[in-house]
Every structure is written in structure tokens, then in C-alpha cells.
């Protein structure tokens, strides 16, 4: 044995092989897929399994993480009837429950603004913290705002690490494992749609929604940004977003922009429709309309 080890050829070969292997594995790691954005299917499966194991270990909950991909021929869009909305904020809390938003500190992906009917759509004079005994209040109307799922998302443009992108079905998503928390996207978003985990998010164990998606409502860590994903875990499985389901007055509409017979197309073609901050050329896929 000793002679073998002392044999210069043997050790040199061993060294060469080891160095080549180390070098190659470094290059492969370095050049291989790093973000969920570019992970091939097999790797994605593996990453998702790791996520599920980590949730089991850290939260002691069996979280199911889906990797459902965009459905071909589908572009999601949203419409909200301003003449119907009564400002009850049921959508806000349904969203919190569905999408595992932190309860302490509170994170709300939907923010509802109370506006003065005399002033019209005017955010400068709007109140997001209204709390009357009952809604709607006389002389007021309400505008819920969440991510507008822009066709030209400024947040995606500015992200320095490519941790956020627009999926083929139009949903703007975030890779929570790749985001460095620089918050440039929050400065760039004209709709205040992006929210940061300023501390470790906390949700009572029994309230965690275990039906999740890897780009959507799976529990997030401290120090990363999160936002509305049109309930990607639901909508890619053919269901409505939680806010659409919970709305007591039917103000919220959702569907496929590419389907000529969809309700969303009917609304856009027949109703008075507006988008927020049209002049910024973000081209939102979230439409506000007046049905009556």
C-alpha cells in the first residue's frame, strides 16, 4: 500500500483527477441553473421536495408545493367593478388566509382605499385606514388595489438579480430563494403592490394554507419581497382567486384574456374600463370598470 501511495505517478494522477473533478463541479455549479426561473423540470422537482422537507422541519407542517406550469393559450386578467365594491375588506383577509401572509406583523397584498365621490379617483385624498361602523359610507366609494400584473412590469426591469419575472400566463412572480431584499422593485412599482418581510413572518401553525405553489403562496422567509400572484396555486388549477370567491357583491371578475367568450373579454369590450396610472405605460392586466 505504502509503495502505491508513494508512487509519484499514482499521486499525480490522483491529484489531477481530483482537481479536474473539483474544477468541473465548480464550473457546473457556477454555470448551471441557479434561479427557479431557469431550473429544468428534474431540478425543479428536487428543489420542491427540498422546500417541502424544510417546511416540515421548520414549521412542522406538511406543506404541499405545486409546480403547475402556465396553461398554453391562457393570459390571466382581472376586472373590478367600482360601482359594486362596498369596501368590506373581505377580499383583503381572504387573501391573507389563502396566501399565507404574515399575521404579525400584518402584510396585506390587497389595500382598499376609501374615496370621496366628489373628488373621484384621487389617491392623494384617499384613506386606506377607514374604519366606520358599517360600510359603505355615504358619499364614498372604494378602490381595492393589489398587483396590477403589468404587461411591462417596471419591477422586473429593475431587479438586479433576476429574481422576479413575468410568467407565460402573464403573472409576475418572485423567486423567494433568490431575492436579495434590495427593494429596488418596491421603489419601481407605481402601485405599492410589493411588500417586504421586515421581520420573520409569523402565522399560527393551524392557519397555514398547505396547498401552495412554488412561485406563489408558499411560506416566505425574512428579508424578501412578496406580492399578489393572482392566486397562482388556484388559477393554474382552474379555480378562481380567493378574493373573487369571497366578494359578497360580485364586484371581482377573473378570466382568460385570450378566450373571446370569457366574462373578462365581455367586460373590456362592453363596459367603461380604466386602468391605474395609464400614462406610465405599464399596461396593467387589472381593469377597473363601472357596470352600472
Amino acid at each position, binding site marked *: 500500500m505504502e509503495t502505491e501511495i508513494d508512487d509519484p505517478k499514482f499521486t499525480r494522477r490522483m491529484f489531477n483527477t481530483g482537481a479536474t473533478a473539483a474544477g468541473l463541479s465548480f464550473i457546473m455549479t457556477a454555470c448551471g441553473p*441557479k434561479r427557479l426561473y431557469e431550473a429544468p423540470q428534474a431540478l425543479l422537482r428536487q428543489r420542491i421536495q427540498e422546500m417541502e422537507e424544510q417546511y416540515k422541519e421548520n414549521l412542522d407542517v406538511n406543506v404541499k408545493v405545486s409546480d403547475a406550469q402556465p396553461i398554453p393559450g391562457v393570459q390571466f386578467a382581472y376586472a373590478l367593478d367600482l360601482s359594486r365594491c362596498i369596501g368590506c375588506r373581505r377580499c383583503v383577509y381572504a387573501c391573507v388566509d389563502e396566501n399565507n401572509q404574515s399575521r404579525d406583523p400584518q402584510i396585506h397584498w390587497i389595500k382598499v382605499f376609501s374615496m370621496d365621490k366628489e373628488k373621484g379617483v384621487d389617491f*392623494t385624498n384617499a384613506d386606506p385606514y377607514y374604519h366606520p361602523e358599517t360600510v359603505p359610507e355615504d358619499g364614498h366609494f372604494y378602490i381595492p388595489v393589489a398587483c396590477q400584473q403589468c404587461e411591462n412590469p417596471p419591477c422586473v*426591469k429593475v*431587479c*438586479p438579480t433576476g429574481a422576479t419575472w413575468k410568467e407565460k400566463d402573464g403573472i409576475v412572480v418572485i423567486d423567494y430563494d433568490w431575492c*436579495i431584499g434590495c427593494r*429596488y422593485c418596491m421603489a419601481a412599482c407605481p*402601485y405599492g403592490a410589493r411588500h417586504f418581510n421586515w421581520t420573520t413572518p409569523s402565522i399560527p401553525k393551524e392557519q397555514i394554507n398547505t396547498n401552495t405553489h412554488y412561485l406563489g403562496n408558499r411560506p416566505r422567509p425574512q428579508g424578501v419581497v412578496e406580492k399578489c400572484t393572482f392566486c397562482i396555486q388556484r388559477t393554474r388549477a382552474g379555480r378562481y382567486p380567493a378574493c373573487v370567491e369571497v366578494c359578497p357583491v360580485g364586484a371581482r371578475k377573473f378570466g382568460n384574456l385570450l378566450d373571446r367568450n370569457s366574462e373578462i373579454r365581455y367586460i373590456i369590450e362592453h363596459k367603461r374600463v380604466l386602468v391605474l396610472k395609464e400614462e406610465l*405605460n405599464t399596461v396593467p392586466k387589472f381593469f377597473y370598470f363601472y357596470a352600472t
Partner: protein
Amino acid sequence: MPHENAGNTTQNTAETLRLISGFARGRLTLIRRGNRSYGIWLAFLGVLIVSGILAWSGQVRHGLGLTAMRDQVSWGFYIGNFTFLVGVAAAAVVLVIPAYVYDWKPIREIVIYGELLAICAITMCLMFVTVDIGRPDRFWHLIPPLGHLNFPSSILAWDVVVLNLYFLVNLIVASHILYRAFHGKHYMKHVVVPLVLLSIPMAVGIHTVTAFLYNGLAARPYWNSSILAPQFIASAFCSGPAILLVVFQVLRKFTSFEIKDEAIHKIAELMAYAMFLNLFLHGAEAFKEFYSNTEHLLYTRYWYLGLGGHHTLVPYAWAAVFLNVLAFALFIVPSWRRRWVLLNIGCLATYAGVYIEKGMGLIIPGLTPDTLGEIYEYYPTITELRVAAGIFAVGFLLFTLMLKVAVPITLGEFRGKEKMAVADGSAGVPALAGH
């Protein structure tokens, strides 16, 4: 023959190593030398650094919730300081331009100190960004090939690139000059001059890119104004030299470092012009906002007048205006800038004025009210102040140690015992003493 070559290479490498280690040991010797006040100064910085590290480690554990930043105002004191310091770093070359372009010798002797300042300022910039991000453990996500840099789409990616390049260029030039001077040689002109000339457009570049970082965001009307980049450059050309002028006087008092009064007054004069431009651009912006009186006036109004019951920042806004006007007056009148007391008041006023307007005055009104009209009044917490003080202390410490090394070496008072073996025709000229 091959063997002989190999032998030579080994010998040369050993020689180089010997020279470098001599340089390193020399630096250590210089750093250790110092009187009582030097010791007290270092101890003071040490205390601030330890306090900063403790505050930051708390922030890493508990999250950025320990700062006053929230979703409404998602950037604050850290990014403000970052922006200000990019300006300081860029302005180091305001000295380089007259020195090399006009071959004006009195300033050329002090160019290296501007470069050392740039190195320290960029170090602080990078530290301010590091403490601001939510996941400092993931900073490598920015560095290809391990990470992914969203270049050229993200202006932040551009900033990462230009800041690091600028840092490298200054580091190379400064170490080269000092290394050669330490061994009693003049710096190699064909290395230094092109790099110094390159650093001029780069300095303008780092500040322009940093301005574009904000400028490009249509969501924030306060930043989305094409006057922003020129204004950044103008204010930077005030604040960087303001620090250097004070440093030069301190050095002149405590070391045998010499600088002609003429050079100091010339720099003060240049600062007056830069400050005039800065004030003019601010005036142009204020006129456009107030006269056209669109909904975009909100942010400017928040800074100068306050909105509703919210006017936390108003005193700072007017303090900045007052300080900048004061500095301009003191520097533009020749007889005033020649009086040392007034000159130093002018420097402090410039430094403070630009610090306010380029720091908090840029970031906070940019984000207040937020994009949906909500007003959250930001004011930094103790954690933020401690972390920031710690970073400034690191910067000052670095600058102190660098000066401690650079001054005696460039003055030719401290030399390495190792002789440079290779003769290259530029023997024995004390560094930076001109040609």
C-alpha cells in the same frame, strides 16, 4: 536554457515577494507609530465600529424591522448615505482634472489623497448597500458566474459594475504610486497616467449611473426628472473637495506634508462654481415644480413645506438651503475664502448641506407620499444611526491608516531597506514631486 529561465523566474518572483513583504511590513510600522491623540482617535473609531457591528448583528437577526423603513418608505438613511458617498468618491477626481489636464503642479501633488478618499468612500458605499439589503447572506447572487447579474436591464446591476471598477482603478493607481515611492522609485508614467485619465470619465460615470438608478423610475415623480444626474454631479463636486480641504490643513499642521495656499484657494474657487451650478439646478427644479403646480408638486412640497400635519423634514430642507447658500457666498468672494476660519466654515457648511440634500433630501421625499398617496413619516431609528456611525468610523479608520502610510512615503521620509534590483531609468525621484 529552460532550467536557467525557470531559475530566473523563481528569483524574480522571490525578489518581488521580498519587495512586497517589505512594503507590507513598512506599512505596519507606519500604522503603529503615533502619538497620544492618534491613539485616542483610533480608540474612538473602534468604539463606534463595535457599536455598529452590534447594531447590525441585531438587525441581521431580527430583520430590517429594527429600522424605521416600511413598505411605504422602503429606502431610508442607509441608501441616502450610500448616494452621498458615491458623490464623495466621484469628486475625488475634481482634483485630478486640473492636475493632469492643465498640468497644474500644486494640485498634482495632492491627487493621491483624492484617490485614497475615493477608495474609502466606495468601501463605505458598498457597506451601506450591504446593511440595507434584506438578505446579506445572498449577496453572491449578484456575482456571475455564481450568481446572476441582470445586466443591462437593471441600473442597479450597472451600479455594481461601475462602482467596483472605479474602486479597482483607484486602488491600483494609489498602491502603485505608494509601492514605487516606498522603494524610492518614481511611479511608472505609462501605467498611472492612462488609469488616472480613465478615472475621470469613470467618476462622472459612477455618479451618473447612481442618479439614473432613481431617475429611471417613472413611479417616483420626484426622481423622474432629467435634471437629476447633472445635479448629482454638481453637488458631488462640492462635497468631495470639502472633506479634502479640511484633511489637507490637518495634515499640514501635524506632519511635514506641504501644500501651497494657492492650491487650497484654487480648489475652494472651483467649489464655488460647482455650488453655484448646484443651487441653480435646484432653483430650476423648484421653479418648474411650483409654477406648473401639478400633482407631482406633492413631493417637493413635502420636503420644503410639509404636507398637512407632516413636516418632520422641513427644518432639514431649509438647513440644507441655508448651508449651501452660505458655502457659496464664502467661497465665491476671494478675500473670504482666503481667511482660514471662513474657508473652514464654508467646508463644513458644504459638507453638511450636501449631506442633507443628497441623503435624506433625495430619498425620503422621493418616497413620501408613497405611490398611492399615503404619508408615512420616516425618521431613522437608533439602530440605523449606530450602523451608519459604525460604517463612517470604518471609512475614517481606513482613511486615517492610509494617510498614515501615504504621507511619509510620498514625502520620501520613509523608505524600504530593500533595494529594487531592476533599473528602469526613473531612479531615485521622490514620488509625485513632478517631472
